[in-house]
């Protein structure tokens, strides 16, 4: 009971032990790198939290449209209670139908991007986003190893490149967005076919931008030039030919030899919902792979 005595100094031992435990976890994770002993723990927690996040995302998704219909409620305030009640239920229906319609449009877009790029896609929904306080731009999608999603696969949506899978559990996977400060993507300018490296700035909001360093310093990218992925060996982590963004500004500094450009990504990272993970056409998956038939095996 001494613990509850308000005048007693709290024990330093507990604090010391807990601080030591925190430092131990950090050290284990830093030292281990890719084979960190924390990794099994991480995937175990991922297996446990994945389904909970999935359920929560399903429950809260209809409310996504809530801020949108506050605009129309102002004029309805004077209406009778009965009308308001009726209205509320109608608005609920409308909100979900708007969400459904948007989702159908996104799915159409995804189908289209699958047929235009020739890649086979596993469709997935974004169920969780990392907070900005964590300073790493990652999202969780509801497809995992059971759907054929594995680390180092390209993720895109109907607008363009989203990112790559960095970790996959059975039912969920974590995607590193290209706007993350640690993300580097090989890009190719649509007009001149010149290659360069794209780095994220770590901001996902409306001012989310990417910095492009061109390999050839004699090339000046044009305004509104489209940038596509350059692609890597065996399509991992990025397949080639996926649109990334548009050139908005070009500058060169005396410190650096190459020209630099600022790229506005085509994807709106603050409202990510339906995405596609590029997989092998004949990959094993428990959900329908979009464009699996049209993709010929040799396209990867």
């Amino acid at each position: 009971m001494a613990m509850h005595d308000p005048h007693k100094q709290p024990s330093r031992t507990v604090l010391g032990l807990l601080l030591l435990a925190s430092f131990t976890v950090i050290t284990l994770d830093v030292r281990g790198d890719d084979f960190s002993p924390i990794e099994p723990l991480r995937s175990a927690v991922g297996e446990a939290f994945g389904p909970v996040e999935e359920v929560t995302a399903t429950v809260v998704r209809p409310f996504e449209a809530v801020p949108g219909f506050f605009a129309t409620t102002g004029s309805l305030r004077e209406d009778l209670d009965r009308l308001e009640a009726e209205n509320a239920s109608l608005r609920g229906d409308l909100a979900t139908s708007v969400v459904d319609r948007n989702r159908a449009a996104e799915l159409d877009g995804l189908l289209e991007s699958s047929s235009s790029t020739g890649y086979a896609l596993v469709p997935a929904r974004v169920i969780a986003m990392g907070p900005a306080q964590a300073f790493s731009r990652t999202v969780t999608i509801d497809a995992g190893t059971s759907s054929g999603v594995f680390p180092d696969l390209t993720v895109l949506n109907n607008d363009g490149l989203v990112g790559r899978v960095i970790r996959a559990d059975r039912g969920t996977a974590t995607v590193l967005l290209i706007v993350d400060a640690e993300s580097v993507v090989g890009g190719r300018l649509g007009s001149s076919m010149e290659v360069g490296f794209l780095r994220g700035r770590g901001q996902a909001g409306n001012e989310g931008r990417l910095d492009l360093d061109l390999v050839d310093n004699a090339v000046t990218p044009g305004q509104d030039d489209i940038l596509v992925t350059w692609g890597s060996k065996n399509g991992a982590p990025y397949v080639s030919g996926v649109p990334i963004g548009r050139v908005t500004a070009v500058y060169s500094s005396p410190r650096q030899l190459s020209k630099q450009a600022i790229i506005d990504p085509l994807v709106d990272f603050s409202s990510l919902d339906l995405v596609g993970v590029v997989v092998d056409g004949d990959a094993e998956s428990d959900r329908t792979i979009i464009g699996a038939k049209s993709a010929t095996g040799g396209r990867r």
Partner: protein
Amino acid sequence: MIAARALVVTFVITMAVVLQVSLFPYLAYDGVVPNLALLVVVASALVRGPEFAAALGFIAGLAIDLAPPADHIAGRWALALVVVGYLAGRVRHDARSSAIAAIIAVAASSFVGTSIFVLSGLVLSDPYVPAVEALRVVPVAVIFDVLLTPFVLPLMMRLFRRLEPHQVAY
């Protein structure tokens, strides 16, 4: 009885961590969301004192560190929330005296917690964060936590008070 209490606390922490990544991104300002787990730890500190809150902070922090889509080095939020729980527990008699004092305690906790997380990231360079970006995010995080305090803190404090084991009268 102890098992039931542990179960309730586990449920509360799980919900706090999950809502933080699944619900609040829709309400986020520039990607910054309120730190619900931190509010739970502060509430437990105000009711139960530093030892309990530091232990809870360690568990809650580890949950944030490991639950997807987290990708930073594990243990950083655990460290931050242990310190937050301990400090909030130390000042709990002053912080419980009025609503304003409680809000100041939350603001200070949020500032300390997010700052420790940012500083540990700078030390470990994981991920590389420009100082400007950090300075932009920390105040927004503090304001968000304070805004959410009236809704979460009284509820959580009542919960922890009910979970408190009965004390033996001398």
